[in-house]
């Protein structure tokens, strides 16, 4: 089990790093997540908008 965790840990950290380092940057602070008008934290639209 320890071995499993060592592997998962290393793979996980590597995945996080590669995702982060290859992600786009436009060199300025990200604006707050664009949830304007959304009806749930995931951005789902409101029933009344349909």
């Amino acid at each position, binding site marked *: 089990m320890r071995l499993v965790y060592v592997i998962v840990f290393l793979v996980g950290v590597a995945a996080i790093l590669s995702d*982060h*380092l*290859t*992600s*786009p*940057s*436009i*060199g*300025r602070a990200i*604006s707050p997540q664009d949830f304007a008008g959304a009806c749930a934290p995931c951005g789902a639209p409101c029933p009344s908008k349909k």
Partner: protein
Amino acid sequence: MRCAIQIARAAIRAVGVLLLLATGAPAQDVARTDPLVSVEWLQAHLRAPGLVVLDIRSAIDGGSAETYAQGHIPGAIHSDYDKAGWRATRNGLPYMLPGIAQLEKLIGELGIDETNDVVVVPAGVSATDFGSAARTYWTLKVAGVRKVSILDGGSAAWTAAKLPLESGVNTLSPTIFEANLDRSLIAEAADVEHIIATGAGTLVDARPPPFFQGKVKADAAQAYGHIPGALNIDSTAFYDETINRLRPKAELAAVAARIPPRGPVVSYCNTGHWSATDWFVLAELLGRKDVKVYYGSMVDWVSVPSRPVASSRTKWDDIKKFFGKGS
């Protein structure tokens, strides 16, 4: 008072034209000059009435008013492209097109009015320096000076042709210049937003590829990258730095071939300097209709955080910059 002068001028011109027509004299060849003139042409027309030779050397090409005074084309006047006010800070953004009043003052104080034929003379040392001439040319046209040209090869070409130089300073008496803003040459952010939304037009990014890709940026810009959908047509591709001239027309057309043949074009860069070269080539030399300069360019575009920016820059680039290994 201004109105009176305007009426007087118009009256004099009208009389002049009538006299010309009456005498059957051929139209002066100053009436229409090519956008790009050669050293030979300038030498031949140096004393033509109404011709103003405008030397724009500045720190951008390593020159200044002093280098002008040391040796310039005979009869030329000087205006420092970088410092004289050809570009102004507006809304906190540097190097923008100045306001109308400022343009009238700048151009009028040089002694230029809308009847003159202005030949803009860059130093002739690099593609960026040519951009100074293109931006000056564009500014004059925007302000309503109809007849403008750029000396191909600039002062360097004049000197290389072993033509006589003059030293000292020339000035013309200031005149009252009334700007007649030509909006068909100007693009603002709204025009760019329209192109992005409708696809009706092409955005041309005149900067070198690293700026386009987002590997480097202008200090005054708040974000890396380019306006989504833009084509990267580096202004230096139009210029042959080995001979310090623009390339022949066929090669210019080849460089510009990626742009769809029809439809509006908006040329931009960081602050409308390099993009003036792209505009000059497309509109003035290749005869393309409906080409505008978005003089605010990236510095203006990214000053509003909600505007989209496309880039291939990654966080790895940011880390490299943080540790001093990138930009």
